[in-house]
């Protein structure tokens, strides 16, 4: 089983996001970058499948040089090789352009399965996985919370939650699966793993290396344009329910939930 995992580097969830003066992007200085948590589920699942069936796990990232850190983290967890698609012309690309670049990088690799997160926790678009599957012409199964490879390694069965029910999907291979929370508990990169990762191959590819035309990428080529970013509204102060007795307070709470919050 050869498996590819697509990963994105995103700001740590604890980072205080500030909107840049242009009103359309965020200030990236001093941001702590991490591997997109949904992609991490993909890495973990790929490693588990590799441990069971053998094969190789290749991690593919896209973005500036700093993304190597997230790729190396995946290598430290146990993946075998990394590819970083990096090119100044990619800066500002939309999801479809990203999917095109990734497709060009993976289409000639030998793979049975591709994992990626169901979405990036930064832009929350959730488009790249499905687009790559479409461009590669392979089945796309989204939001997997359980993945099982058949003994003959020809098909995959994926569980996907749907409104409290579970949809069980079977697909031929190769296929692309997007990972949802609940799929697994990702392992820590072990310390010896971190040192070993330094020696694992990590290739860099520019758009030219991939045979792509730079004019189809970047901010100018976006099909989806960002008009404006606005910060979330300040959270209003909480309300303390007044009352002499628990009964009085409960009655007041019920009234407020009904009349003000309108949830009852």
């Amino acid at each position, binding site marked *: 089983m050869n498996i590819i995992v697509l990963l994105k580097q995103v700001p740590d969830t604890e980072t205080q996001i500030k909107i840049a003066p242009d009103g359309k992007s965020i200030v990236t200085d*001093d941001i702590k970058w*991490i591997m997109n948590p949904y992609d991490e589920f993909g890495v973990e699942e790929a490693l588990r499948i590799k441990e069971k069936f053998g094969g190789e796990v290749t991690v593919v990232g896209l973005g500036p040089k700093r993304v*190597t*850190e997230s790729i*190396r*983290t995946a290598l*430290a967890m146990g993946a075998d090789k990394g590819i970083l698609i990096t090119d100044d012309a990619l800066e500002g690309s939309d999801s479809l352009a990203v999917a095109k670049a990734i497709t060009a990088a993976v289409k000639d690799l030998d793979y049975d399965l591709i994992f990626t997160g169901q979405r990036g926790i930064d832009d929350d678009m959730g488009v790249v996985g499905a687009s790559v599957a479409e461009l590669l012409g392979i089945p796309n199964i989204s939001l997997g919370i359980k993945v099982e490879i058949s003994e003959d390694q020809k098909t995959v069965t994926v569980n996907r939650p749907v409104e409290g029910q579970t949809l069980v999907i079977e697909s031929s291979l190769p296929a692309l699966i997007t990972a949802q929370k609940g799929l697994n508990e990702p392992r*820590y*990169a*072990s*310390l*010896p*793993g*971190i*040192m070993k*990762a*330094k020696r694992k191959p990590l290739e860099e590819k520019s758009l030219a290396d991939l045979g792509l035309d730079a004019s189809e990428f970047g901010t100018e080529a976006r099909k989806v344009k960002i008009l404006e970013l606005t910060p979330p509204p300040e959270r209003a102060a909480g309300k303390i329910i007044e009352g002499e007795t628990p009964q009085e307070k409960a009655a007041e709470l019920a009234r407020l939930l009904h009349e003000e919050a309108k949830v009852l």
Partner: protein
Amino acid sequence: MIELPEEIEILKQTVRRFVEDEVEPLAYLIDEQERVPDQLVKKARDLGLFGLTIPEQYGGSGMGPLGLAVLREELGRTNMGFGSFFLLNNGIGSKGILYQGSDEQKEKYLPKLASGEMIACFALTEPDAGSDAGAIKTTAERRGDYYVINGTKQFITNGPVADVATVIVVTDKKLGAHGGISAVLVEKGARGFIQGKEEKKMGWHGSATGSLIFEDCTVPVGNLLGKPGQGFAVAMKTLAFGRLGVAATALGAAQRAFEMACDYASQRVAFGKPIAKQQFIQGMIADMATEIWAARLMVYTLAKDMEADLERNTEASMAKVFATEVAWRAADANVQIHGGMGYIREHPAERLYRDVRLLRIVEGTSEIQRIVISRKYLSNPL
């Protein structure tokens, strides 16, 4: 921001996450029970924490001073008792073997120390010799193919639980600190070797500290590290590395105290507004932030220099004394900002205050560090 090599940055993120997810939820329990749960020790082993600085050929990760600094900074953020198990294996408990050990000794101990199968300790301090390490009285007398050890070591981290101890002993009374002190390995269960009970301590609960008693304790001559008389050098070199580690722990503790203080000050309302709006509190926060930045620059400059194999003994003392005193002031200010809450056992501010106190004492007290520093400048006037 200090630029760190990629693998060190990954190490930092990994340990930060391990501490937040696995250690911090148990920090209070470890403090109360004065014991690190076996399950957590196992997780630390699986992660490879025992072998961080042990060379890869012996099953460790072979990281240097920078890796150690990052690890200890992150561990300084939580219950400090947790790390002592494996910090000894990575520091003073294994360095002697690494620096002076024979190939045979390295093969025998380092892989087991790296995996955590064996726990190490380092025994220098005695009832009558702490700061004045040259005054130790524990003797090792050669009798044929054996050394016979007599004496008592005190306040030894991991003493009660260690599988192998690096013990600093007098092999030649006449020469004393000038070539008469040696380092010898003693294993658990050696004849005449008694591992004393665990002391009750102010902080660092979960880290077992106790006496080692040697009553005609007999070990093969092959247990000597290096040559007779090299023990003092082993001890001093080992401790210099340790000072960086203590400084980094202090940095992590100071940073944690600072974060806790900022959070609480922003939430706690008195006189109708968050206490963070009071100038007194703002001053404390500003001082903490400023001092922590200075400590951070010192610790990481030192670690980078040591990583490049530069001799930085004086600077190690400077970083140790400064960072541990910054941490002390930060822990105190944090308790103050928390008011009564900061004095309650269940609040981490209280534990941090107790844990941090040790850092000014171990691996050379603040006074001894100042002596070391001043000596360099006063004996070599410009």
